[in-house]
């Protein structure tokens, strides 16, 4: 390896300096084009691009001066900007070549390739088989591995052939040959060369690289795919959601800023005193604005609760009712079951696996199954109730009438039907969590209690429950967060989804309706933030309770 003369290094650094200035200039040109081009763009998009571009331009100029001074921070800035430019250009190129949209075409040809994917898997298992075989001769193992590798390769090639990868590649390049695509490719090459040059050791040394810098660069590099995706598809939309909640966005037209109007509409409620429990709502509130949500009857009078958006409050009421029933119903049996499962008898792992099964099945499928179980005339649930009632009637000579419950079409039981499904589905998951918590309790505590003459019941209240408190907190809060978002069960089980007399309209269902059926996306965003605040509040309350109880413990 020939050493690089200081002349060469100096020249390279000088080129980097110029490149940084050019880069900043290009950014400014880009901004100018953005604001002067006739193409219609949303203002928030323009603002985001402007902020990004001006930041890049300023950073680039600062980086140029640092490179000129021979500071390492200049190299860092150059690497960062070139990397981001490289990534952007790459995504642009892929997008121009319609790689992302092309996944749809892959969906078309993928079925033909699946059998060959099977060959790949067979090859993999064949190759990994030798780890399980008793060690014989080294050669035979190696040959098995080689055979496996060849089968994998063959299967892979056949798979690519079957999904028409060649056609896809040809299509990609044919699409790439247009101004934007060619520009992207050129940008990829320029950024790539710049990155490669900056990462060469003699350049790094010329700019005074230190040992810690390697970790900084690798750290950001390794994190970058995740971080960029996270910013674009999570953090960015989260901020946008807050913005939308203050607009009248409808997904198609330019959103207008409406301030707190969305929140005001949600929170616009009235309480009114009723003279008689059956007094009509229009006598006490202005029904042009308010709709009756609920009335609370107290003796001969009552209180009427009316809201400008009654569906939101119905949804909130239903969701909280759902949480109030579904959480205990899935947590308390789980606590009992985990204690039973914790006995060191054979077969416990089998039961644990069986209990876990409902929580991994698709909620949509499960809801369809339960829909038929709940069927009022032929469903198993009513059949079991009938059998039970007959049994008790015969046993005690009673005459209990079979209720023949119309589970999903009766507004009194519709939400209960959803609660039962949710409890059934999350119980096993919670059982496994509790079981893990139980297995972390030191056995000596129980032994000491036994010596002190404590019974099983005392041990449960005195040791198990307090020691399980952190697990219980985790279980209750995750179950609550899940339950607050109940949607799929309701959407599939009920027809229409809001249930008889709006008895199963939930917050997420109402959010979906507002945002994607009525296309009031600004309002839907406001609902989302209210939902978040409610969830956050509930979690905070549980956290406070848990902390207080753990203070008592110590």
């Amino acid at each position, binding site marked *: 390896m020939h050493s690089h003369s200081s002349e060469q290094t100096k020249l390279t650094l000088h080129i980097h300096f110029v490149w940084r200035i050019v880069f900043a200039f290009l950014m400014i040109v880009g901004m100018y084009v953005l604001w002067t081009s006739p193409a219609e763009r949303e203002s928030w*998009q323009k603002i985001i691009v402007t902020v990004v571009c001006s930041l890049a331009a300023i950073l680039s100029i600062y980086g140029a001066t640092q490179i000129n001074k021979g500071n390492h921070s200049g190299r860092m800035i150059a690497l960062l900007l070139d990397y981001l430019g490289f990534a952007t250009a790459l995504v642009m190129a892929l997008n121009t070549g319609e790689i992302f*949209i092309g*996944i*749809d075409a892959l969906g078309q040809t*993928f079925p033909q390739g699946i059998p060959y994917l099977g060959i790949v898997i067979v090859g993999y298992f064949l190759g990994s088989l030798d780890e399980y075989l008793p060690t014989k001769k080294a050669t035979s193992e190696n040959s098995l591995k080689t055979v496996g590798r060849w089968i994998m390769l063959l299967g892979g090639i056949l798979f690519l052939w079957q999904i028409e990868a060649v056609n896809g590649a040809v299509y990609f390049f044919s699409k790439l040959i247009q101004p934007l695509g060619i520009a992207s490719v050129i940008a990829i090459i320029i950024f790539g060369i710049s990155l490669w040059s900056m990462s060469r050791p003699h350049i790094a040394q010329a700019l005074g690289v230190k040992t*810690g810098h390697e*970790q*900084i660069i*690798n*750290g950001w590099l*390794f*994190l970058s*795919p*995740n*971080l*960029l995706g*996270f910013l674009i*598809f*999570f953090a*960015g939309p989260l901020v*946008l959601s807050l913005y*939308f909640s203050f607009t009248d*966005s409808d*997904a198609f037209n330019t959103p207008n800023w409406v301030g707190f109007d969305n929140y005001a509409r949600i929170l616009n409620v009235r309480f009114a005193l009723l003279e008689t429990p059956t007094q009509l709502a229009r006598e006490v509130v202005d029904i042009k604005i308010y709709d009756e949500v609920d009335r609370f009857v107290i003796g001969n009078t009552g209180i009427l609760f009316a809201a400008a958006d009654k569906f939101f409050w119905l949804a909130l009421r239903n969701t909280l009712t759902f949480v109030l029933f579904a959480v205990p119903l899935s947590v308390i049996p789980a606590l009992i*079951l985990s204690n*039973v499962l914790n006995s060191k*008898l054979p077969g416990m792992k089998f039961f644990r*696996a069986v209990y876990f*099964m409902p929580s*991994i099945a*698709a909620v*949509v*499928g499960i809801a*369809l199954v*339960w829909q*038929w*179980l709940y069927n009022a*005339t*032929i469903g*198993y649930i009513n059949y079991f109730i009938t059998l039970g009632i007959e049994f008790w009637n015969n046993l005690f000579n009673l005459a209990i009438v079979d209720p023949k419950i119309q589970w999903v079409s009766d507004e009194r039981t519709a939400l209960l039907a959803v609660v039962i499904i949710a409890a*059934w589905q999350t119980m096993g*998951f919670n059982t*496994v*969590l509790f079981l893990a*918590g139980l297995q972390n309790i030191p056995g000596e505590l129980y032994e000491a209690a036994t010596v002190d003459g404590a019974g099983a019941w005392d041990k449960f209240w005195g040791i198990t429950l307090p020691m399980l408190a952190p*697990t219980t907190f985790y279980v209750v809060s*995750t179950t609550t967060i899940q339950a607050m978002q109940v*949607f*799929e069960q309701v*959407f*599939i089980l009920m027809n229409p989804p809001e249930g008889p007399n709006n008895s199963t309209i939930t917050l*997420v269902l109402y*959010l*979906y309706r507002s945002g*994607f059926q009525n296309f009031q*996306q600004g309002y839907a*965003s406001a609902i*989302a933030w209210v*939902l*978040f605040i409610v969830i956050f509040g509930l979690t905070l309350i549980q956290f406070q309770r848990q902390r207080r109880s753990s203070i008592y413990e110590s």
Partner: protein
Amino acid sequence: MKLQSYRLIRFLNNFFIYFVLTLFAFIMLFPFMYMLSTSFKIPADTFRYPPRMLPRDPVTIEVDGFEKPLPLYYVEINGEQKEFALAQSNIKIGIYAPADNLSATVERRLTEVKPTGGATNQQTVVVNDKEEKLFDVEVDGQIIPMILISQTTVGEFINPENPDEKVSQNVRLSTPVESISWHPENYKQIVELNNMARALTNTALVTILVVIGQLVTSVFGGYAFARLKFPGRDTLFVFYLGTIMIPFVMLIVPLYQLMVVIGWTDRLAALIIPWIFTAYGTFLMRQHFITFPKEIEEAALLDGASRFQILKNIIIPASVPALATQATFTFLYAWNSFIWPLVIINVGNEKNHVLTLALNVLRGRASDTPNLILAGAAIAIIPPLIVFILGQRFFVESVASSGVKG
């Protein structure tokens, strides 16, 4: 305490434990069993009350002199139960009695009986102040005028071995002879009827790409968080942690608008790309990598290995269980997701449907054939179950440990 009674108590205790566990296992498994058994039934069998677990078909038999096979029913002859074939159904039977002795009834087919005095000039008689028509009914060779008291419909059942041996009884009240028979063709039918095959392969494609993509980004991200020191790392990690609690529905509106801007609405890409980058997966990977002994890495670094080589050759091979867990988690999440595909993929665009969407369509389309709907549900539910059974050793343990740490 005597040893004997101690043993008895322990036996009762264990018996009680297994009783409770089995009861709950039944509750947990019953909907799955119901789904599977119903998906193999014929439609008529699904609507039967009381419901039965095993799928059954009515048995038919070939009888000489009949073109089509005849259905078999149980009939009672002289207190003996026999299997007879239904030769003719919907036979109208009249119950006749003489006007002066209404309790002496006889049953005759309506076609065998002629009106007394001819059809145009039928004689009548007054019984209980009501005028009743008279019919000529033959009893033991004699023709006696009788009135029609009531009508029923019966079927004529014949002995399949001896077609001349006949017996009549009400068809609806007779029990058909049935045999247990499974109808796997329901699955074939649902796959053809409802674009289920495409939905299945689409779901597989989406799930595979999400699992691979998410593993890659979270392995790199998790390693950076766990092992590489860089300014801002810890702040960023706290930020990641904080977002884990945020429910997905918070993002659904802005993410939808983002997809509109990029042009990914109605595209499979929208179901894949946003799901590749998760805070939760990165967090899990970081938690795993942080337990990995530092010394091995330092030794490799001294030998001149790059960070990428360390990750590829040392850390990933040693992390297969953690990766398998994460892959299983992601698989289940991607396979079962519903609200995002519902928002992004148009109902009419069936070629981009995933299973959950296909089920949602099927629910409305085949609402009178539960066997087909539940076959569809089984197609959506069984693959995750298989993945769970294969990966449950890692998976259940890791769910448990995540809860304890959390």
